[in-house]
């Protein structure tokens, strides 16, 4: 493998790591708001890194351009979606979990 390929593998692995963090976060965190944190941010970074690795792998032509567009759109739409979910939860009157609330009280 060339050094360039090692870089690509590195990016993909880091992306996979953050994807795993997002998944673990969704399972471990206590309520809808904190889960939205995990689902929106680590997830964005993971996807962007994965698509970025793909963009570097592909022929540096049209497919790469498309991948770059994908990255840009992910950066715009992902936080918007997270915001919509959190706002919907707030409008439903769901109270955020705090350290004061004890176990068994989640949900």
């Amino acid at each position, binding site marked *: 493998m060339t050094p360039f390929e090692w870089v690509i593998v590195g990016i993909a692995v880091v992306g996979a790591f953050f994807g795993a*963090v997002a998944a673990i976060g969704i399972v*471990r965190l206590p309520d809808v708001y*904190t889960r939205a944190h995990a689902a929106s941010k*680590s997830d964005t970074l993971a996807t962007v890194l994965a698509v970025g690795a793909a963009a570097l792998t592909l022929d540096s032509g049209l497919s790469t351009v498309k991948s770059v*567009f994908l990255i840009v759109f992910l950066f715009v739409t992902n936080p918007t979606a997270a*915001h919509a979910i*959190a706002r919907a939860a707030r409008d439903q009157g769901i109270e955020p979990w705090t350290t004061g609330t004890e176990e068994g009280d989640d949900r």
Partner: protein
Amino acid sequence: MTDPDPVRLLVPVDDSVTLRNTVAYAVERASAAAADRPVELHFVVVTRTRSVSPDAPSELGDARDLLERVALWVDEDATEAIRPSITVDTDVIGVDRYLFSPGDYADTLLEYAADADVERIILDPEYSPGGAAPLLRPLEFELTRGDVTVEEASVDRQAKRTVLARAAPLSKYFTVFGAAYLFYLLLSTWKPLDFFTGFVTAAIVSVVLAPVVSGEPAAVRRTGGRLLRFVLYAVYLLKEIAVANLQIAYVVLHPDLPIDPKLVRFQAAVWSDSGVTTLANSITLTPGTLTVRVAEDGFEIHSLTEGAREDLFDGGLERAVRFVFYGRAAAVIPSPRERGDTGEGEDG
């Protein structure tokens, strides 16, 4: 004047083509009522200016000029006989509140109506603050939530309104269609089929999305510098995202899950639609903070850890967004902590 309770009419005004006629109509209504009770005419301009904005003085000045003009018109229209029983009140409201949708404007107007004990609101038919996107309920509807009578001034308006024009001008559909088609073809392989599928796709996109495309004319003069600064901002944001993601990974993977979530509220010193949107999305992207909503009374942020809250109030992001949209001068506005805008939300 020791007469009974005066009749109070509220007329929200804006620089519209039918404003002059609306004022005339309001005076006519006032004259009809002035026979037995005194009349108070309240003209208000609802502005979305934020007092930290460098444009604030000129925007407020324009609003006051408009109100002065309106007061003159009332004087012109009122006959000698009823002039003594009409009082005119003008006011500028809505400063420093985030007003986006017609609903937000309705809230502000209704609040004023309740304070001033107004019994009837007269609407200029062309008055549509907060946009008339078909996804939003119009102002007339939102106002019916209050316990005041709402009436649309019956004035002659130029017969230019068609059903289509209400949603979006036809030119906008073509612009959106053209842009979408061009974009599709640029990314396609230029086969004959692509021209067909692109046409269909662009047609669907323009029909569905043209009404919600922002019609804000871009200030070309500013856009160049803004784009350049935006690139700098993107680099800064990527760095922030990377650092903060590591912190989140640490928190999530830590066996004890050391989180201390809390809702906080603060007033951000940004003042345009694109600025507020960029800041809200950037806050969401930087881990540890999540924009829950941007309401009239500021940003509501859910923060995961104490550290994330500290970063937020240090105002680095906010300053960077100001730098992008309003240039270097605006970046020196104090941080939320220094401004004392760190209203901790009630714990729930």
